[in-house]
C-alpha cells in the first residue's frame, strides 16, 4: 500500500467512501423498484401497456 502523500488527487476518507457506497446502493434500489414496477404494470395492463385513456 502506498502512503497517502504519494497518491494524487482527492483521497476519500473512510466516512466519505461509506457515504458514496450508501448513495450507490440507494440508486440501485431505486432502479430495482422501477424494474419491478414496470414488470407489474405490464402484467396488469397486458400487451397494450402504453395504450392509455386520456
Amino acid at each position, binding site marked *: 500500500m502506498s502512503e497517502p502523500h504519494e497518491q494524487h488527487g*482527492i483521497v476519500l476518507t473512510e466516512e*466519505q467512501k461509506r*457515504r*458514496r457506497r*450508501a*448513495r450507490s*446502493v*440507494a440508486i440501485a434500489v431505486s432502479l430495482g423498484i422501477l424494474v419491478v*414496477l*414496470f414488470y*407489474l*404494470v405490464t*402484467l*396488469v*395492463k397486458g400487451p397494450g*401497456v*402504453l395504450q*392509455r*385513456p*386520456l
Partner: protein
Amino acid sequence: MSLASQSEKLTAQFSTAEVGDYLALLKPRVMSLVVFTAFVGLVLAPVPMHPVMAFTALLCIAVGAGAAGALNMWYDADIDARMQRTRARPIPAGRILPGEALGFGLLLAGFSVVILSLLVNLTAGALLAFTIFFYVVVYTMWLKRWTPQNIVIGGAAGAFPPMIGWAAATGGISLESVLLFLIIFFWTPPHFWALSLYRADDYARAGIPMLPVVSGERETRRQILIYTLILAPLGVAPWLLGFAGPVYGVIAVVTGAAMLALAIRLLTERTDRAAKQLFAFSILYLFLLFAFLLIDRAVGAHLGVVG
C-alpha cells in the same frame, strides 16, 4: 491561502451527502400529506382502479411532490439559511451542494411526470407537471419573495394532489375533485398565516413579505377569519352536495365550528398560544375531513356490498 482551506475547497466539489440528506430534500412531511390527499381523491373517484395502477399513481405523485420540494430548497437556500425553522435543511447546513439538489429535483420531476403520463394517463401526468411548475416557478421563484398573497395563490400547488388522484382514476376533472381542491386552497391561508403570526420575526429577517410583516398582525387575524368563514362551509359542502354521508357531515360541521371559534378567539386573544393552537388544529381539521371522506366511502362501499 492555507493548505487546510484549500483542501476544504476541494472537498466542497464532490458529494459527501448521506442518503438521508437526499430524503430530507423531498420534504417527507409535506409529501405524506400530499400522498394522503391524493389517495383520498383516488378512492373517492367513481372509477375503481387496479391496486398496482393506484400504487403507481401514488408513487409518481409522491416523487413529483418530493421533486418540487427539492427544487424549492435549491432556489430558497439563501433565505432558508436566515430562518430558524429552515436553517438545518441540507443545503444551508452544507450537507448537499446546490447543484446536486437541482439535478436531483429535475431528474425526479421528469421521471415522475413521464411515468405517470405513460403508465396511468395524460390528464394526471399533465396535472402533476403543472403542480410542480406552479410550486417551483409561480410560488417559489415569483410570488414568495414578492407579495403577501404568496401563500394564497401558491397554495393552489398544495391543493392539486386530490385532483391528480381523481384524474388518475377517472382520466378527467369533475365538480367533486374541484371541491377537494377548494377545501385545501381555502385551508392554506389560515394555516400558514397562523404559523407566520408567531414566526413573523423569522420571515422579516429573511425578507419574505408574509402578511404579518407587511400588513401587521391585526390585518392578518382579520384575513384568517375571512378565509376560515369561506373554508368552514366548503368543508361541509361534500355532504350537502350528496357525495359524502351524514357521518362526514357531522364531523365537518363540528370541526369547522371549532376552526371558526379558534379564528374568532385569535381576533381578541392576541397571543402566540392562540395562533399556535389554530395552526395545530388546522392540521387536524384537514386530516379529519379527508379521513372521514375516506371512511365514509369505505363504509358506503361495504354497506353497498352487504345490502
